[in-house]
């Protein structure tokens, strides 16, 4: 390190703590007359609103034998509602220049809406119809189902998809987490309109909805529109899926597939979002395999040895299980070496933790980068919903950096020994890896 940069770093530390984050993110809690809660960041300089709705549960609510039902249901929300058929619905959204993205994950159905202030009442009325009165017309079901089946077939030829599928299946088996949310060609083909109506009532219920908004809308207006938006949805939906333990054994599982570059996922049990050690684990992961070029895995596997374009690790605190995972891809004749380097780094950090310098550097980055996340209305609405689903208090944005700062070297060493389990570190490899066998 040269003198120049050392000076910069010292300078930056002094300035960083002075960053006036509190003033920038002013969250208003809103409760509608009907009892729907929402968090809002009011921002009137650009005349539009980003609205994020999330229904807890998602694809893991699929019932036995109906895998893919929630996914197909969500894909059909924009394919006709109330008086409008699929085409008329799309034309109306275009005429308003509103966009509604309907998405699904293991644990949630997400709706990301964006609409102009000047026609927000019409846009929200259209969104309400999609949420509360989807038509599920048979021709739309057949058309969208064919697209999903086409996607499923392509996924089965995609090494990136196959590796995730194999890892999930190994860890979660018959639990909904153990199979792709799209379902199989067979399960999707067997779904009926009744299955979609059932999935809709089970997943989109008022007892599980979280709302975040950012942009040019007042709290009073938001409170007023929320009831209308969700009116007609059932009060209660399906019970949430069961929790499941994560158990893995050290070793390698090879899924043979004819590609020049092997793709691997590795990992074992992680920590829940509400675990008291989660913050320390988050900081630790930043040092081991976070986004930067200076993370240990990136440094050892890419920068020193040129074995990959990218290697990362990440905490995956799902609602019903917690994982600690990583990803790497290397040519078939080099993946074995990459895996050995990753194993060594895992063991090294489990035994020795991190250095004081690494910890300081990670803290400076994480605290400095945090305000950069609030980058636009859509991102802010997203963060607001995520905070509510994680059961965080409204002042979290102002206390979060202090929590990062409070992590000590001892915390990290303790959590390293707890979180990192070389004896459980499992690799699943898709490709034609040389020198690796299941």
């Amino acid at each position: 390190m040269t003198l120049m940069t050392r000076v910069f770093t010292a300078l930056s530390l002094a300035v960083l703590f002075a960053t006036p984050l509190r003033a920038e993110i002013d969250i208003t809690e809103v409760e509608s007359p009907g009892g729907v809660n929402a968090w809002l960041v009011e921002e009137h300089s650009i005349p539009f609103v980003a609205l994020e709705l999330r229904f807890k549960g998602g694809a893991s609510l699929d019932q036995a034998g109906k895998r893919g039902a929630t996914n197909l249901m969500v894909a059909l929300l924009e394919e006709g509602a109330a008086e409008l058929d699929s085409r008329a619905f799309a034309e109306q959204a275009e005429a308003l220049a509103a966009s509604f993205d309907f998405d699904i994950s293991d644990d949630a159905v997400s709706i990301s809406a964006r609409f102009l202030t000047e026609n927000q009442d019409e846009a929200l009325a259209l969104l309400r119809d999609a949420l509360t009165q989807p038509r599920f017309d048979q021709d739309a079901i057949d058309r969208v189902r064919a697209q999903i089946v086409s996607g499923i077939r392509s996924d089965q030829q995609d090494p990136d998809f196959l590796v995730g599928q194999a890892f999930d299946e190994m860890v979660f088996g018959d639990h909904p987490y153990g199979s792709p949310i799209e379902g199989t060609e067979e399960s999707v083909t067997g779904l009926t309109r009744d299955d979609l109506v059932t999935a809709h009532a089970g997943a989109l219920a008022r007892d599980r909805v979280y709302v975040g908004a950012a942009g040019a809308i007042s709290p009073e207006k938001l409170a007023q529109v929320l009831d209308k938006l969700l009116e007609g949805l059932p009060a209660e939906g399906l019970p949430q899926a069961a929790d499941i333990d994560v158990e893995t054994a050290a070793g390698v599982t090879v899924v043979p597939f004819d590609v020049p570059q092997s793709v691997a996922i590795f990992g074992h049990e992680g920590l829940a979002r509400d675990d008291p050690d989660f913050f320390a684990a988050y900081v630790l992961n930043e040092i081991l395999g976070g986004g930067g070029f200076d993370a240990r895995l990136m440094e050892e596997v890419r920068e020193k040895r040129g074995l990959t374009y990218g290697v990362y690790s990440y905490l995956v605190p799902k609602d019903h299980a917690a994982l600690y995972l990583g990803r790497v891809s290397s040519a078939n004749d080099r993946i074995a070496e990459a895996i050995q380097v990753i194993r060594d780094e895992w063991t090294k950090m489990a035994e020795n933790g991190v250095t004081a310098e690494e910890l300081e550097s990670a803290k400076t980055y994480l605290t400095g980068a945090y305000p950069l996340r609030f980058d636009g209305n859509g991102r802010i609405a997203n963060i607001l919903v995520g905070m509510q689903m994680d059961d965080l208090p409204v002042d979290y944005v102002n206390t979060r950096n202090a929590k990062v700062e409070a992590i000590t070297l001892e915390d990290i060493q303790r959590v390293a020994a707890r979180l990192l389990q070389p004896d459980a570190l499992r690799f699943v490899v898709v490709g034609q890896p040389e020198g690796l066998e299941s």
Partner: protein
Amino acid sequence: MRRLSALAGACLLAAAPLHAQTIEDQVTTYQLDNGMDVVVIEDHRAPAVVHMVWYRAGSADEQPGVSGVAHFLEHLLFKGTEKLAPGEFSETVKANGGTDNAFTSFDYTAYFQRIAADRLGLMMEMEADRMKNIQLDREDILTERDVIIEERNQRVENDPGALFREQRMAAQYLNHPYGTPIIGWRHEMVNLDLEDALAYYERFYSPNNAVLVVAGDVQPDEVLALAQEHYGPIPRNAELPERVRPSEPPQMAERRISFEDPRVAQPYVMRTYLAPERDPGDQRKAAALTLLAEVLGGSQTSVLPQVLQFDENRSVYAGAFYSGLSLDDTTFGIVNVPAQGVTLEEAEADMDRVVADFIETGVNPAQLERIKFQLRASQVYELDSSNSLARRYGAALTSGLTVDDVHEWPEILQSITPEEIIAAAQEVFDRDNAVTGFLRGAEEVTQ
């Protein structure tokens, strides 16, 4: 005539979102004495900034035989200078709470950092340093060459769709370097060496070949002062070559390619036509093509999906695509992903039939008005991301356009008539300029 069109313009404006501030209000431009262009985009909502330096040099500016060297050099710019050790650039950005990266395209190479606004000077100091002072040792080069080969494995070799694209592009351009992939042909990448990278660096990396874009919580005059301090002292390169690439001869025969790969589960047909790009002061034809792509295949309600996916159920997906942002001739594409039981030959005929019918019938005025309203609304939505605004100006200014061209573009789009869209279609859909590609699995069953 003049009054009439002004009136029509007024009507359009009245239908536009009210009270919308426009991007012009937020943009200030300068040029340093050494020729470096400066674009400042103000956005004071958050105390952050994005700092970008764009070079008017991409993969299409490479010499023959060293494909991939522009992108290789981009990686090597993180490997240190006389002042900074390898990796120290990114470490310093991180230590200041920022993120950084870079990207390479046909027409540009760009480096960027997102960071707290009060660190802008530090970013400029480091970026100016590596414009001229990189220091590379042979071992760094070899390791990083392995990295870009793994990058190619990941992006291309493992993905038959990406391999298919390379083959189509190579067939599309008979003479122009857009036919060579940005990441490089593998057999040339494995031989890239230090001299190749340095030759490219010395040829193209200089202030008079660069555009500085700063977007965020900054004052234009302060940005200018910082730019003068950090970039100003770098001398211009008097030997910067004029930017002229080998151009296309008249294309006189359609090319047809069939790419088979056992990893393809969903076959499709794609055809691209050589098409004009946006030129400075001359963007009308590109605007008509942009709207043509929207009308034909830009959304669920556009012509190709409406007929093939909705009315006839013969396609899983059908669409059209065009981007006018390019220094030299670009392409206009149509694609059809057939439903089960429809062959690729039939899918090609389907897509041609729909396009021919469209040219015969003309543009649906209601559809065109929806598209134009969405374009006007996008001028509001885009203000939400200073990062993507910064990218727009950087890409435009390195693709031969001026800031005025960027600002005039939305109005040009609004002024395009249905007749111009049809005329653009008739001109662009010339099979002599086209590459028709079939992508299929090894054992496609013809039904």
